[in-house]
């Protein structure tokens, strides 16, 4: 089939799927019974006297919107990282950004010395940025030779472990804060409200638009540094811009819903499989798929231990870990 027609029909199909999934997410597995029809009424003719409709508008809708945007942001961040490093295993959770951001947030939200020094989003971005810088230096990934791919992932694992250990130490020292930090480390959308949404969406949107604008440069970077430079790409500028976008996307996400892994790793691969290697085509698809995956995980997070909630991050890890192993085996064998 013709590529533009194929892309367009796939895009429409994905959007329709996303709308259905979103609708399901708004009413499924609610402790107070909510029906699909309540959702329809809440959206079209809101009546604040009906409890079910108020649940949809006050609790479910901000949660759904957050899930959609979180998924898109993490998918975009993973795509940029894979593009910049030319490493199929690159993703925020693999290369230490998640763990670093978590440490940054744990520090400002528990330790009195750091308390209020920065906002939690800034702390997440600083922590994530620092961790990533370390990983890139240790894995010598700025030279995109392609031979150091294993080394980069090893550096990511090491720095992630270090950050996780420090985060735990901080949490243990400040016991009264511990429970909150632990839920947040597992990554959950249960606390997403209109208030957190209002600070999250502008930042994430900037990151997503930036990511789309970076795609032509990412395409040329796949030809190797020498060719990219030869074709007029300013390497330093593209890498810095890409890194900054990853930090904005991941930082905003983590400070809103906590550490959610594996979306950034899995989704770009599926999008590539569907759309081919052109970043301009597969990044938008990756965003839609990411939004769908996180929304699905959030829906399931209410179902698995109903009426209790399982963190969505834990569900994604259950799906993501086997996929990661599959990717590693496919590369080396």
């Amino acid at each position, binding site marked *: 089939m013709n590529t533009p027609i194929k892309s367009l029909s796939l895009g429409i199909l994905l959007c329709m799927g996303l709308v259905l999934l979103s609708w399901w997410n708004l009413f499924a597995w609610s402790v107070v019974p909510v029906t699909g029809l309540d959702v329809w009424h809440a959206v079209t003719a809101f009546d604040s006297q009906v409890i079910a409709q108020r649940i949809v508008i006050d609790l479910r809708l901000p949660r759904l919107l957050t899930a959609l945007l979180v998924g898109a942001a993490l998918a975009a961040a993973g795509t940029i990282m894979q593009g910049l490093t030319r490493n199929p295993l690159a993703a925020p959770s693999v290369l230490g950004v998640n763990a670093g951001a978590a440490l940054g947030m744990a520090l400002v939200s528990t330790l009195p010395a750091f308390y209020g020094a920065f906002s939690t989003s800034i702390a997440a971005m600083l922590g994530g940025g620092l961790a990533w810088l370390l990983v890139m230096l240790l894995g010598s990934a700025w030279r995109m030779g*392609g031979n150091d791919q294993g080394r980069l992932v090893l550096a990511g694992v090491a720095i992630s472990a270090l950050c996780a250990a420090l985060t735990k130490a901080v949490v243990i020292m400040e016991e009264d804060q511990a429970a909150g930090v632990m839920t947040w480390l597992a990554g959950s959308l249960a606390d997403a409200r209109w208030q957190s949404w209002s600070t999250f969406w502008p930042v994430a949107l900037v990151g997503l638009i930036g990511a789309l*604008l970076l795609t*032509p440069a990412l*395409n*040329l970077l*796949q*030809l*190797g*540094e*020498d*060719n990219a*430079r*030869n*074709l*007029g*790409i*300013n390497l330093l500028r593209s890498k810095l811009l890409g890194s900054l976008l990853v930090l904005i996307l991941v930082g905003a996400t983590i400070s809103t819903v906590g550490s959610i892994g594996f979306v950034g790793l899995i989704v770009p691969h599926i999008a*590539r499989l569907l759309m*081919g*290697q*052109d970043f*301009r085509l597969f990044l938008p698809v990756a965003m839609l798929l990411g939004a769908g995956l996180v929304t699905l995980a959030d829906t399931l997070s209410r179902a698995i231990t109903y009426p209790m909630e399982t963190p969505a991050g834990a569900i994604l890890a259950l799906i993501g870990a086997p996929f990661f192993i599959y990717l590693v085996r496919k590369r080396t064998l």
Partner: protein
Amino acid sequence: MSLSAHQLSVGYHGQAIVKDMDLTLPDGRFIALLGPNGCGKSTLLKCFARILPAMSGEARWQGQNLHAYPSKQLSKELALLPQTQPIPEGIKVQDLVAYGRSPYTGFWGKLSQQDHQIVEQMMQQTGTYELKDKLVSELSGGQRQRVWLAMVLAQDTPYLLLDEPTTYMDINHQVELMHQLQRLNKQGKTIITVLHDINQAARYCDHLVVMKEGELKHQGSPDEVLTSAMLKEVFSLNAQIHRDPVAGTPMCVVED
């Protein structure tokens, strides 16, 4: 329009390989950079291609510092074919060649009708048009080299730099490539290539630059440069100079 070095030193890890070089490459010629291993010919080319920075001195393009020249503008004027190329996954031949048009396309990289024509023309010129729907990763080494050549030709630059383009090629592909470069040169393109084979350089190129230990030793036409004395001095080789029976160009024959 010209490429030149001014007191230029280039190297790795603080060690200069090209030392205080002054050199102006003539416009419109087919130029070979020659010299024994480690003489700095590839290092110099890498500096002209901005893969390596200048340690001291300056490489200049049109009288301006090459390394401060705007990237996008330079990519319309100076193209590079690196010695070893990555094997991009999942990219079709025509898409790779089309990337050669990126300096000219708008920000989003959409090709105009004219861009499409140039891409097709370059594929035809390099004999890769029949491969256009194949994946680059499926091709043989020689085919892939031609596809990369088509890409840098699609860049449509007046200057083209090549780093040992014939090294991994069969002899027939080597000859084919040299003929092609000669044709491009006749069409007005300045070509600067690092070569190993002195006789190949003397036969096809019209300007030779000979380096030794990071310094410029000789430059000029093959007749001026390719002499027994030069081979003795630069390569420590005893050789006679004869005429190539086909092209009439000088060629060296090594003595026992």
